[in-house]
């Protein structure tokens, strides 16, 4: 049973995010070890294993990046343990620009709003990358799968930038 089957949804990048939590709750009720508290040790162990799978499936399916990565892994393309580097120079230049800006942001007159506009810019990039990704994943051409993998690699950088921005925001707002 793959994660899509477990959640009773079609194998696709498009997932109904309002339905997902409901299915998750339903699966929790069926598999949580507490529901087997009066069962034998074996029942509990099977429940723990299944429930752990439900939890992992939920976290994979609910975020678009991990969902896309999982979709590719179902098609035999494993991005998790790879050492592939990005060769797209335009993307790399962009990354360097963002990183420089983030490093110098504390010296700006209004660092918090500068941080916000950087955040907006990255979110925009992520949004358009996700749209691109959806189209690529709908196709079954091998070349499109390769391109999808490239977009996922780029998205990983962008999401990482976002979390670094959040850290910076914590530092700057002194909380």
């Amino acid at each position, binding site marked *: 049973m793959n994660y899509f089957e477990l959640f009773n949804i*079609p194998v696709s990048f498009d997932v109904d995010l309002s339905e997902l939590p409901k299915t998750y*709750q339903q*699966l*929790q009720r*069926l598999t949580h070890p507490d529901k087997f*508290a009066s069962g*034998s040790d074996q029942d509990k162990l099977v429940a723990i294993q299944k429930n752990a*799978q439900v*939890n992992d499936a939920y976290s994979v399916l609910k975020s678009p990046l991990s969902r896309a990565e999982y979709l590719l892994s179902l098609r035999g393309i494993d991005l998790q343990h790879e050492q592939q580097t990005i060769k797209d120079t335009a993307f790399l230049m962009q990354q360097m620009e963002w990183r420089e800006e983030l490093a110098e942001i504390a010296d700006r007159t209004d660092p918090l709003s500068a941080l916000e506009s950087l955040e907006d810019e990255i979110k925009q990039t992520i949004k358009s990358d996700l749209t691109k990704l959806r189209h690529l994943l709908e196709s079954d051409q091998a070349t499109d799968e390769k391109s999808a993998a490239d977009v996922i690699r780029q998205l990983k950088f962008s999401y990482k930038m976002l979390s670094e921005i959040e850290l910076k925001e914590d530092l700057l707002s002194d*909380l």
Partner: protein
Amino acid sequence: MAFLQISEPGQSTVPHQRKLAVGIDLGTTNSLVASVRSGEALTLPDSQGRHLLPSVVRYLADSVVIGQEAKQQASTDPSNTIISVKRFLGRSVQDIKTAYPNLPYQFTDSLSPVMAVASGNVNPVQVSAQILKELKKRAEQTLGDELQGAVVTVPAYFDDAQRQGTKDAAELAGLKILRLLNEPTAAAVAYGLDSGQEGIIAVYDLGGGTFDISILRLSKGVFEVLSTGGDSALGGDDFDALLVEFIRQSSELTGELSKRLHRVLLDKAKEAKEALSEESVYTVQFEDDTGKHHSVVISIDKFEKLIAPLVKNTLRACRRALKDAQLEKDQVIEVVMVGGSTRVPFVCQQVGEFFERSPLTSIDPDKVVSIGAAIQADILVGNKPDSDMLLLDVLPLSLGIETMGGLTEKVIQRNTTIPVAKAQEFTTFKDGQTAMMVHVLQGERELIKDCRSLAKFTLKGIPPMAAGAAHIRVTFQVDADGLLNVSAMEKSSGVQAEIQVKPSYGLEDSEIAEMLKASMDYADEDMQARMLKEQQVEASRVQENLQAAMDADGQALLETVEKQAIEMALLNLSEVAKGNDKEAIKAAIEQVDKLSQAFAQRRMDQSIKSAFSGQSVDRI
């Protein structure tokens, strides 16, 4: 099984076969036990009507005093009176001395916190077990029969070592643990069922020695912890310590305080703290070791100034927890206050200002955790088969393993819903390497020295290969109690190593068994009889469950050969269980388990499929 089912007085045994279960809040400062009686969860008082049992254990040469009577002697007999032992669970002597430099105890070992007391040596697990035993005794006397199980609460922020220590203490006290439950979740349960709310709830728990903040989503009886944070070494005791320091400075006492004087000042500080929740000024009076009289005036302003940085730290953790849950402050519909230290008005006011709403305080903050635990215990023991309530907790601190250069590689991120199982692959770094050390750590920092070391084990027998050619898969499995199991396997050879993670400063299973044996309550034969009875109960549980499962699904999900094999094994089990060889019963259970494992998995998958059938048509 019938001989274990107990009815409430005045009720018939059929059809309401109630089983006795309790919720226990094993607190830093005070501990409580609660139980659901006639549909209501209530804390159980002792024979003198006191609900709170101070978490204080005093060791005399040939007896042990627990609770209020022990606490009263703390000043006069500090080194034999163990106070707030919860702070020491799963910790090394060095950790403890760094965090609490003024402790009056004699540690006999340089690593493990063994304390010398009048009756000999004791460790934190044994001290905690004394408290649990006292509460168990109280519950059995009040409820009139033996307990079937207990839910024991722990701070959400407790790491694996601290959880394991708590579980070991319960085992040592002769309690069957139904679940280790996070304190904030328990508090939310106590409130959630009363008010029947749905939405985001923040639980702010400031106890004697720990601070927790948890963000939960309540929906149709499911309590889902979204994030948790806090500090396992911050609490009301720190307020007291600041007051002691203030009193010391104001009275111009120099040098280190004597153990006696420190204890006196601590008691005075607690008095002042309590008084200042109602009055604006309080005067502390005491005599120092030379007999000189001192009088120190403490104003509420001064007190609030002293504790403000600590309260600010707690709010910082609140903000982080919200961020981790990807929520904003205004999405929080209720703030639940837990822990005696939330009685300090300044704390309540600051929390109220931060969340921009008045916190809930209608349930006694000292009792709320045990009440929630009792509700959960009642469900887990099987008294409410139709209950929809489900508690989903998260892992409080990331788990990882050591990699080259003293760094940690995270395998499971904090705030992941548990149970969880994750695997990560590693490889050898030298040609011909045949063994690999796996060092398991818990914490958020990158350097291993900043994380807590949980366990080290070695995977041996890896076939010699070129560096980087071996694929070693390390699997972490965390159960619903937040306890970790780690296994490692080299993929090409199938060489395996597995350990149940036991804290470095805790106890081995064999030590617990030894202590159980040695404890005064059980003579050796009693112990044997008890263990045999436990095996027989498990045997009948296995038989009943499996028979019921076979009757329901055996036809559909089992091949004839499989079915026959299971039936044979069950027959064997029921024969063996009639005898009194506990090892043989255990082996027979294992045999049944092995043969029926695939069946159990198929039934689980089947239950999922049938739950979805009927809705699949419009979805696909």
